[in-house]
């Protein structure tokens, strides 16, 4: 199994967490019609007002910042990082950097101003989604038949929802908790299906896909991801009426493990040159 | 290396006048030199893919030649910048080298500049102790000289000094090592060759000399049998002629117990019982005889003893017998025999591998006979191709030195000291001679030599621990020696067992000239760079030794004491060489290698053979007088002494113990393997890449196994090599059993390298 690309693991997972938070924040705010949220102090106790306390925006900003920082460690020459915007016309990586850059700025603005209007919330959510899409494309290289499809986008979207919901619940008012719980439950169920089915699909694909399937199933990280990050949370959530505070870290752990498999165990087409493809 | 920058700065800079030295000139220097310009990233300049357009004018270009023991002896073009070899190419002027080298030749830059290279003369306090001291050349030579004078004093002669040298460097001037010995007096020589002697004798009995067609005319063959050779690995430049022949409709038959890379490229690949080649050739001969496809004109007018041979075939050989001996079905033998006899011209390339047997010489004679009786000897595109020394007619000025007045030595008959010994005739006449020990039994001979025993061993162009047989016995033999001097480039096992090591130049660091024993090109080898560190060429070492010998005991060494490798290279040329090559002066070779102007690309085209009868000798009385059969009769092989046959041929990544130790080569060949047939692996419960022990009474090696159907079920295949980081040596497994022939032309019989047996088990 090749190197797990830790910087990329951190960058993708954390950036998706930030996107998830922004996304669900926007969704919540739609669910706040009639000032339902106003009457319910947010758990962080920073007064009422529209969903998305300064604390929440700040957290998202910091998470996104850490993600971007982590991505630098992936470069042989970090000093050249700014030049990654040079190839927007073709390279999804350039577009990804641009999109997440913009997303980070929006988060920062919201965090600084403290209260983000519907416009800003919507913008953040949309740009975040766009950024998520660029990630989905960037990490679907032709060299990896198992991933050269919509799978990465699907994985990333699920990660965003899982992380967004579980961390969002730290800040969301009571009014939004049921909705977040529903989102989390739903995406956990979806994730369970996806992470079980996808390897099976690969196993019935070409040589390299089959090798990938074997590599994933053979990796303890995959099972950690499945059990810690999906099964346990699912069981818990089915019982519990609201998202426990420790759910965030748990899901995050699962996501990190899962992403490590994603980067570390996926087989590159070039490893079996000369062998039936 | 001096302890400070060269003049003018010695000692403390603050005191150096040079700093009062014209600041202007310094500034010119400091600013102009470009050093400052390169400062910001003098080191970090990336080797960008968008390099400046390639321009030959940016380089000094030199002519070199690969001096290794290889058919191809490539003509090299060396690109030098700032006095550093930047890269090498094959010379386009040689139609044989044709602009390309091989995987080994392209690794040469790593060899010259390897940090592992031996840099200085060094002395080991306690052989094998690893306690080495750096000494000056003078100190090293004085030690050796004193030791030589001491043993000369003690024994009354220098027979206590033995030379072991073979094919580590075939540059002609390197025969100066033999010359150094002669110039000291009569010494002990490890004579013979582990490589190809049985076949040399066989061809000398049959034809009067070993003389093959120009390999480049193989493309004119209508039928090519490659018998016990693997050119796809060991003579890559010859393959284009094999392909050319096939492109023109010839059939390619490869006969080898292993399905080699060459076999994989043939039309037909025979995998006979190892060592059954003689039976196979005789079976084919019998079928040719039965079909009446014998070239009557040739056997009647240009050969002697054919009728006796024919009678032998009728009475003692059948195709079915050959089939039973070789495992090749009778109708296969008949088919190929008929095709071979009817295709004109047809040729057989007789490999060196197939004669490394106790019956190897006999087998080569049988194959010669098959080629001869079908009228393919002396034909363009025909011939029994083995090798030749037609282009080796140099002066051997470096080699031919006379013993100091009053030297005494060995009294008794003197044979040749190897296939390249041009002094053989002269030596026979002299009152005293050198003492000859069989190089193929080095260990035993060193142990047995008496009055005097061998006290000092000089090893050059050779790595005995990697190449001599029965390594464990060799270690015992070395323990008996009083002094071991090895002349080397890398820290081999032999150096570890030496008292003194002397760093020797690479091909880029000396002048010499190189010829091939296969093709007909001769290449100049220019000195392209200064010798690194303190390396000296073999003849410079000889001169320095002579200086010290004569200083300590005037007249004790006749070797010139002041030598310029270029002048000595020039001294090797003569009118004959110039005429053969069609050049007027050696300088012409700077324009590129030259090819010998032969009357025909075919050897023996005039049918004038060098045998006693002047004809091709199916019956050789000379051969009989040497204790062999007069006719090319079948000779039984060696009896197995372990369950599986062990083959230890050449790898494509190395020549003997050279090249596999280079870091670049490790990219492509990290470790040795033993290759096993799936059936054998199954029987032994060995899985692919398992680590196994290969062992026999001689010793054992540990390595990983690769399972492949290219190796027969009763064989273990391990390629020989020396790896810098691994304790691996096939000579742990190979004993010193002699081949049948070789003594006649090379002074000692060959060695049955492929008549070895061993067992294997999971480690």
């Amino acid at each position, binding site marked *: 199994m090749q190197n797990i690309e830790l910087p990329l693991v951190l960058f993708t997972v954390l950036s998706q967490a930030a996107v998830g938070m922004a996304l669900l924040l926007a969704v919540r705010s739609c669910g706040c019609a009639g000032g339902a949220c106003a009457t319910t102090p947010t758990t962080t106790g920073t007064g009422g007002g529209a969903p998305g306390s300064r604390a929440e925006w700040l957290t998202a900003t910091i998470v996104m910042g850490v993600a971007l920082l982590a991505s630098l460690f992936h470069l*042989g020459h970090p000093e050249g990082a700014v030049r990654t915007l040079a190839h927007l016309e073709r390279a999804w990586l350039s577009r990804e950097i641009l999109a997440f850059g913009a997303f980070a700025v929006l988060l920062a603005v919201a965090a600084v101003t403290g209260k983000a209007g519907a416009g800003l919330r919507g913008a953040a959510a949309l740009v975040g989604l766009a950024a998520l899409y660029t990630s989905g494309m960037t990490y679907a290289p032709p060299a990896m038949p198992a991933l050269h499809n919509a799978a990465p986008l699907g994985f990333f979207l699920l990660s965003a929802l899982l992380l967004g919901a579980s961390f969002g619940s730290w800040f969301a008012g009571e009014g939004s908790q049921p909705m977040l719980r529903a989102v989390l439950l739903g995406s956990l169920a979806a994730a369970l299906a996806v992470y079980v089915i996808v390897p099976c699909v690969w196993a019935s694909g070409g040589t390299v896909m089959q090798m990938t399937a074997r590599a994933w199933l053979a990796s303890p990280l995959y099972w950690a991801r499945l059990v810690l990050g999906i099964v346990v949370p699912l069981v818990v959530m089915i019982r519990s009426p609201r998202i426990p505070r420790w759910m965030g870290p748990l899901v995050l752990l699962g996501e990190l493990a899962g992403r490590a498999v994603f980067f570390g165990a996926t087989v590159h087409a070039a490893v079996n040159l000369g062998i039936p493809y | *290396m*001096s*302890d*400070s*920058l*060269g003049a*003018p*700065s010695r000692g*403390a*800079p*603050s005191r*150096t006048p*040079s*700093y009062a*030295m014209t*600041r*202007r*000139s*310094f*500034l010119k*220097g*400091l*600013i102009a*030199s470009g*050093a*400052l310009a*390169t*400062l*910001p*990233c*003098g*080191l*970090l*300049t990336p080797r960008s893919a968008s390099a400046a357009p390639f321009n030959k004018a940016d380089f000094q270009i030199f002519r070199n030649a690969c001096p290794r023991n290889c058919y191809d002896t490539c003509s090299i073009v060396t690109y030098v910048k*700032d*006095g*550093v070899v930047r890269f090498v190419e094959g010379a386009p002027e040689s139609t044989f080298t044709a602009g390309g080298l091989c995987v080994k030749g392209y690794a040469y830059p790593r060899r010259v*500049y*390897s*940090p*592992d*290279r*031996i*840099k*200085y003369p*060094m002395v080991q*306090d306690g052989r094998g102790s*690893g306690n*080495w*001291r*750096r000494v000056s050349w003078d100190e090293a030579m004085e030690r050796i000289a004193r030791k030589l004078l001491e043993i000369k004093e003690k024994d009354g002669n220098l027979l206590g000094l033995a030379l072991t040298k073979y094919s580590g460097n075939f540059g002609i001037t390197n025969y100066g090592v033999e010359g150094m010995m002669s110039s000291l007096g009569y010494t002990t020589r490890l004579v013979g060759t582990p490589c190809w002697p049985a076949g040399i004798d066989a061809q000398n009995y049959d034809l009067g000399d070993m003389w093959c067609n120009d390999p480049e005319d193989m493309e004119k063959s209508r039928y090519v049998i490659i018998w016990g050779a693997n050119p796809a690995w060991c003579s890559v430049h010859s393959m284009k002629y094999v392909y050319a022949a096939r492109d023109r409709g010839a059939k390619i038959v490869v006969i080898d117990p292993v399905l080699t890379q060459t076999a994989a490229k043939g039309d037909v690949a025979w995998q006979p019982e190892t060592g059954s080649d003689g039976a196979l050739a005789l079976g084919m001969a019998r079928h040719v005889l039965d079909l009446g496809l014998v070239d009557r004109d040739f056997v009647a007018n240009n050969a002697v003893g054919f009728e006796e041979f024919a009678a032998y075939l009728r009475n003692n050989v059948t195709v079915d017998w050959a089939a039973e001996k070789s495992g090749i079905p009778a109708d296969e033998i008949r088919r190929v025999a008929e095709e071979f006899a009817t295709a004109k011209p047809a040729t057989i390339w007789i490999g060196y591998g197939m004669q490394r047997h106790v019956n190897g010489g006999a087998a080569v004679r049988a194959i010669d006979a098959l080629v001869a009786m079908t009228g393919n000897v002396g034909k363009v595109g025909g011939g029994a191709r083995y090798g030749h020394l037609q282009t080796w007619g140099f002066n051997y000025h470096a080699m031919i030195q006379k013993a100091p007045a009053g030297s005494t030595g060995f009294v008794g008959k003197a044979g040749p000291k190897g296939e390249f010994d041009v002094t053989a005739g002269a030596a026979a006449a002299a009152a005293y001679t050198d003492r000859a020990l069989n190089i193929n039994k080095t260990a035993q001979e060193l142990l047995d030599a008496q009055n005097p025993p061998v006290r000092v061993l000089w090893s050059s162009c050779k790595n005995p621990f990697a190449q001599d047989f029965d390594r464990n016995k060799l270690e015992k033999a070395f323990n008996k020696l009083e002094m071991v001097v090895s002349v080397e480039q890398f*820290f081999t096992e032999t*150096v*570890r067992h030496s008292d003194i090591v002397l760093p020797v130049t690479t091909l880029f660091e000396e002048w010499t000239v190189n010829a091939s024993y296969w093709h007909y090109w001769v290449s100049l080898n220019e000195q392209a760079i*200064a*010798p*690194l*560190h303190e390396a000296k060429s073999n003849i410079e070492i000889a001169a320095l030794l002579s200086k010290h010998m004569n200083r300590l005991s005037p007249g004790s060494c006749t070797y010139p004491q002041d030598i310029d490798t270029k002048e000595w290279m020039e001294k090797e040329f003569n009118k004959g060489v110039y005429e053969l090559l069609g050049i007027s002066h050696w300088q012409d070779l700077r324009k590129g290698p030259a090819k010998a102007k032969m009357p025909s690309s075919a050897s023996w085209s005039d049918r004038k053979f060098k045998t006693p009868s002047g004809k091709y000798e199916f019956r050789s009385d000379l051969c009989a007088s040497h204790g062999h059969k007069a006719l090319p009769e079948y000779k039984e092989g060696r009896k197995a002494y372990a369950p599986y046959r062990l083959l230890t041929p050449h790898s494509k990544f190395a020549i003997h113990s050279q090249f596999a130790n280079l*870091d670049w080569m490790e990219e492509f060949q990290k470790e040795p393997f033993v290759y096993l047939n799936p059936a054998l692996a199954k029987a032994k419960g060995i899985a692919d890449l398992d680590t196994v022990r290969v062992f026999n009474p001689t010793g054992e090696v540990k390595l990983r196994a690769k399972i492949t159907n290219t190796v027969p079920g009763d064989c273990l295949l391990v390629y020989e090599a020396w790896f810098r980081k691994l304790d691996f040596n096939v000579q742990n497994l190979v004993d010193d059993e002699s081949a049948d022939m070789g003594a006649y032309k090379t002074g000692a019989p060959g060695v049955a390298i492929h008549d070895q047996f061993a067992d294997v088990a999971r480690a």
Partner: protein
Amino acid sequence: MNHIFPTPGTPRDACLLRALRDLFSARGADGLRAASLALDACRTMFGCSRSTRGAPPCAPSGPLSGLDTIDTPDHWRTTEYAFNRLFVGPMAVPAPPYASAWLETEPRLMGEAAMDVRNLYHSLGYAVPDEGATPDDHLSFELDAALALLALREAANAAPPSSAPEPSPSTLATDTQEAWRWLVAEHMGAWVPRFVQHALAEPDVPPAIARALAMLLCWQEDAAAACSTASIEETITGMQGRQDA
């Protein structure tokens, strides 16, 4: 012990450089002994505190520790054997004292690194003895060049502006400073630390050699730190990259 914060150019550096140069080019036991004693003398004279604040002192422990108490021929002969095993041969050595062996993309001699220092030597009006045969980037030659630049800097700084011939001493000063910075910080900084680490990582390195290696590293680090400026910070990080590789 006397706490001094020597800046490059002080007698301390010259003393160290000379001793280290002679030690790493020693041909045998006697050379090693002489150079090693000279090195100890420098340490006694100038102490071994670091000019880089906060950096731990070089000496294994205490200012005078590790001075050779034993001074027998045998002791130095053993040191010589070990020295050869580490730096000379004939076997493949763990720590070849050539820049190219560390800076070349692959271990080899006579690489670009050698050409770079050759340029510097030439610009100084010097060359290694029989250039082309002896790799220019042997540690001792580089230390020798450092010595030269050291002296040159003093000369430059000393030179009174008035008596300045063309070009002005300021140019000389900056050129020399730049050359010094390149050599000690950029070039040697790129390989000396790794060279020292590898050598010290070997089993039973004799005390004399261990001390010399430590002193070498300290000198190089201090000298580099002393002339480090924002401009070269990144170069150094670039170098760090190489060192990790």
